[in-house]
């Protein structure tokens, strides 16, 4: 098995190995912050920042890592950049920081990041690691946005807080509540499976 190139890593993260729909990682954040598009985009951006920084850092020091201490170092790195992201949001996007509440600090325990550090950054060079981080976080952002788009428009008739549907639209309040997250995620996951099944699973062989 040859090691995937930077371009392959980037492309795979977006759809074929989408962190949410294919790897089922980072679901806590996925379910929690997708009741509107603003939160979803902010969360996607925060994860992108943390993942790129963490992957780059880990990739740079990958030759020094030993198996038994690597997780400690991954966690240290991730926690640092998450804190930076949290502070940046609080300074420049205070309302979003307040709306996302604990979910920004919780990126520390988001499996997507530690998984990418382990799978890619600890083995491949900085360029590949950054490409991988970009692909995976774009895939994550795509998943968040797809869920939030469905939930926000059904639940409030709006996108990004702007009214899209006529004011007479009856808000499906359940969609912006936690049960709506599970329902929407289940249905979109089913859709993703259906699409990949219809393609005959060619690229999965």
């Amino acid at each position, binding site marked *: 098995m040859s090691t995937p190139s930077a371009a392959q890593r980037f492309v795979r993260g977006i759809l074929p190995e989408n962190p949410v729909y294919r790897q089922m990682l980072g679901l806590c954040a996925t379910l929690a912050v997708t009741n509107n598009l603003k939160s979803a985009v902010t969360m996607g951006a925060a994860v992108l920042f943390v993942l790129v920084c963490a992957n780059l850092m880990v990739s740079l020091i990958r030759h020094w890592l030993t198996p038994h201490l690597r997780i400690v170092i991954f966690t240290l790195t991730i926690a640092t950049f998450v804190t930076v992201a949290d502070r940046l949001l609080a300074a420049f996007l205070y309302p979003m920081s307040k709306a996302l509440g604990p979910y920004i600090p919780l990126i520390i325990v988001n499996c997507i990041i530690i998984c990418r550090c382990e799978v890619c950054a600890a083995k491949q060079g900085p360029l590949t690691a950054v490409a991988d981080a970009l692909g995976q976080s774009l895939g994550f952002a795509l998943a968040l946005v797809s869920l939030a788009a469905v939930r926000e428009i059904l639940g409030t008739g709006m996108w990004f807080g702007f009214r899209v549907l006529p004011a007479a639209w*009856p808000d*499906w309040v359940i969609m912006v509540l936690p049960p709506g997250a599970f329902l929407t995620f289940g249905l979109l996951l*089913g859709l993703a499976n259906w699409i990949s099944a219809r393609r005959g699973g060619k690229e999965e062989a």
Partner: protein
Amino acid sequence: MKTSGMKNKDNDKTAAANAGFGPALTEVASSPHLVESGRTTRRMMIDVLLALVPVAGAAVYFFRWPAVRQMAICLAACLAAEALFALMRRHRPPLADGSAAVTALILALSLPVTAPWYTAVIGSVAAIGVGKALFGGLGMNLFNPAMVGRAFVMISFAGALGAAGYQDPGSSIDVMTQATPLTAFQQSGVSAGLADLFLGRTNGSLGETSALACLIGGLFLCIRRSAAWRIPAAMLAAAGIIALLDTGLGVEGWTAAHHLFSGAMLFGAFFIATDPVSSPLTPLGQIIYGAGIGALVMVIRLFSGYPEGVMFAVLLMNALTPLINRWTIPTPFGGQ
């Protein structure tokens, strides 16, 4: 969109190709659905429809045309949804078995008469789609489809449905307030008379107001053995005992009998809790299940922000049904 999971199940090749990526949506372990020999789903459903006649009749008598309109919308939407989801799975629509019609009627009768038309439609699609088709169709569903649909719209459109929805005139908890167009059928206030509750001269969802109609239909179902009599018996007994403990012998004119005859208690006991798919199979299990619902209804009525709790009580106990079935498997003769 909703077929995604089911396609996998229908088409083993695709499912196999998809292996390694977690189970398909429909691979949910569910209780076996056994029907006594000689009893077909169709006969059972026709019994339920017959039993619903007095309830529907009372609804039409008290609420007039809006009640008819509500039932028609739900029937049309449920049958259409059933046909649509069956076709998406490339099955022949099983409309003749009557189960979709039963779901439609129960849903229609559990909504307040003021419910806007779209709530009935969305509720029906959610009931058949999310409540039944996603789990693999009739017999595979974990939850009572009508209650899934109702929960969906009650949470979504609480404002629009709260007006007349499950008012519990004398409960200590706030009833949702809104001037309803149903002035002729307005609730008689805090001191609702037992006779009014019994006959149905109170406000509420279509099917729940008349205790008498529910009793007639329910007893018919139990006598025909299309409903397990243990479930309503245990449910009403448990609720009655808790109500007695709470109210003593009638504080402020609100007695245990008021609790039993008000809200969706009787309608739920006979028509909702007894859904054969989502309730336990063993006699002991049915008693545990019924008593659990009765206790939960009273807990929700007395201690929560909701005035009525039949819907949530049934859904919660539905979730426990597989477990109850496991606990109460009868020991075979000679077994240990």
